[in-house]
């Protein structure tokens, strides 16, 4: 049986992989099997840093032949090394799953030996879990760059989700900080998997069997000089052209000392703003050009929707009783749930300001951008801007490092997803 030290070594470094979500798949249990996947995803615990634990995130090995500057497990680093076998992982996964500690497994690995050998071991583990251990819970497999694409396609038949991490937001930074990984070694397998998924979805008999929860990726923010505008353009490309389900941003923490890297952490506020912008692009029909110019960064004082609205005051205020749903979504402070409540309620009666507050629509920001039955309750122009800045400041508190940013309920939901 796996000992506690090995477990610590192999999970310590997997923790910086932020994609913990277990959502997007609805795998059913089979006869004599254990487990299924829940579409909405389930959080099983929360750590003192406020993050959700949903999956057992573990490395197969942390012995690496690559030498990425930012990584504590790089070849030239002097850390304790450990590896475990596919059976040990299966056993641990099954036992954690039975006790309802986790939704499933997130299996990754350093490049141990060769990329192909590493990918083979990951694939073997997924196959064992499904076939030998009859496990139907969630499996996320990390793709190993430079491994044979046939291996990736094989793993995709057994996993719910796969991810190749872009790592850094530009090819230049990748060359500098992760010299053995090339853009092509990350993007080309993503494309192959994308094509395979599309083909699989069209095949009526097999529909959805291949990576039902799709692909995701992750990049480190603040270790390299790219602007938010560049990052969000890459993000938009990944969603619209690569069909990714999620792009994760991991705010840089200096775990490793290197002349190539900043010595201070990037701060969570920037990461948070990127998630907010990401949300607007995915769900609210925003185009990246509306949010942030190519070389620009997002406003730190205002959330991206507020910042956009203040630049577009000619579109406001909108009348709550008649504005189309897509316009309601663009009102600062009104999210998908709020817009839904409003469009439902107004079918039955015309809504006034009092109705909205009873419906728990948060009006702190929204009131500057709406009218109710023709009446306006907010401030105009610069006064609105000032009021929003003050509202924003009370949210971000000392901001950057210590996030009282997520202290109220409204912001707490947003903290996990960037929902606005």
């Amino acid at each position: 049986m796996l000992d506690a030290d090995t477990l610590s070594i192999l999970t310590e470094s997997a923790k910086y992989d932020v994609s913990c979500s277990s959502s997007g798949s609805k795998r059913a249990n089979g006869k004599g099997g254990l487990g299924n996947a829940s579409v909405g995803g389930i959080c099983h615990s929360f750590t003192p840093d406020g993050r959700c634990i949903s999956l057992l995130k573990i490395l197969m090995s942390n012995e690496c032949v690559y030498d990425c500057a930012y990584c504590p497990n790089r070849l030239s680093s002097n850390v304790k090394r450990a590896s475990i076998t596919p059976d040990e992982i299966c056993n641990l996964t099954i036992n954690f799953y039975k006790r309802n500690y986790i939704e499933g497994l997130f299996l990754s690995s350093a490049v141990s030996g060769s990329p192909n050998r590493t990918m083979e071991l990951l694939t073997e583990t997924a196959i064992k879990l499904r076939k030998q251990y009859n496990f139907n819970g969630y499996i996320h497999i990390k793709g190993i760059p430079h491994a044979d694409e046939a291996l990736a396609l094989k793993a995709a038949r057994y996993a719910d989700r796969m991810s190749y991490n872009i790592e850094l937001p530009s090819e230049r930074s990748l060359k500098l900080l992760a010299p053995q990984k090339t853009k092509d070694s990350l993007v080309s397998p993503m494309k192959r998997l994308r094509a395979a998924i599309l083909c699989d979805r069209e095949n009526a008999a097999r529909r959805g069997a291949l990576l039902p929860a799709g692909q995701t990726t992750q990049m480190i923010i603040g270790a390299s000089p790219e602007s938010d505008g560049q990052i969000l353009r890459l993000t938009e490309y990944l969603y619209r052209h690569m069909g990714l389900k999620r792009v994760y941003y991991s705010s840089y923490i200096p775990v490793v000392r290197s002349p190539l890297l900043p010595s201070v952490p990037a701060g969570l506020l920037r990461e948070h703003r990127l998630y907010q912008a990401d949300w607007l692009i995915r769900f609210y029909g925003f185009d990246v050009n509306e949010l942030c110019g190519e070389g620009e960064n997002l406003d730190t004082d205002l959330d991206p929707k507020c910042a956009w609205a203040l630049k577009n005051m000619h579109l406001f205020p909108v009348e709550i009783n008649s504005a189309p749903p897509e316009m309601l979504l663009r009102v600062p402070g009104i999210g998908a749930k709020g817009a839904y409540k409003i469009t439902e309620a107004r079918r039955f009666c015309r809504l006034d300001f009092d109705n909205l507050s009873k419906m728990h629509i948060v009006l702190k920001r929204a009131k500057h951008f709406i009218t109710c039955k023709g009446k306006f309750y907010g401030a105009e122009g610069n006064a609105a801007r000032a009021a929003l800045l003050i509202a924003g400041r009370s949210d971000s508190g000392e901001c950057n490092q210590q996030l009282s940013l997520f202290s109220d309920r409204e912001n707490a939901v947003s903290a996990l997803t960037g929902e606005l």
Partner: protein
Amino acid sequence: MKIFLTDGTTTGFYTAVFDSYRENGAVITSRKNMQLAFDTEIVNVAADAEKATRVRNKLDKLDRYAAGDVDLALRSDDSLKEQTSFEYIKLIVKSGRAVRRQLSVPAVIEMSEIIGRVTGELHKMKGFLRFMETESGALYAPYAPDNDITDLIAPHFKARFGQQRFAVHDVKRKKAALCDGKTWFMAEVGDADIYISEYEKIFEDLWRKYYVSVNIGERPHEKQMKGYMPVRYWKFLPEKNGFYDDKT
């Protein structure tokens, strides 16, 4: 003012709706320790299946999902659950049809909030419930939810566990969902005599170790953790206490 005091059952509630319908300003509750004003009169409601069925039938005709809403609301620990459900039913009868989408009407807002807290806890517990393996290989999960949700959560675990035997035990309400690997049913269970497997401690310790090692220590944010995972649930989470330690 008249207060209709029920026995806390669904039948009792519908009976009270029947009995109080023509009274002006009647209140329905199952709470025994209420502060009473001088002019209140308490009516003890004897649950009556026939009266309850008549109310149900009428309600089903107007909105066939309303009884489902009431069922969820009555599982709540909210002291106003009966009254809120009563107001909701009165509104349906008055309107002559379903009202759940009228999201600006106070009776609908209150009802959907009570229901939201019940289904919200149901979802959370799908994550926070913790099973222990017994000597005989069954899985046992004790917990103390705010709302009465055990028979709602059981199907979720039945689907996951397949032929595995398991029990979900609400120690506060002294009831449990028991599954023999084929079907599951509800039973009254007070104190359970459980013999935990000798391996249990190994996995609990590994889990605790995992919990500690995935935390990013540089970014403490306890307040958010407690917001998502309220302290009252910790008693049953091995990663948050040594609760099971003293048993083994």
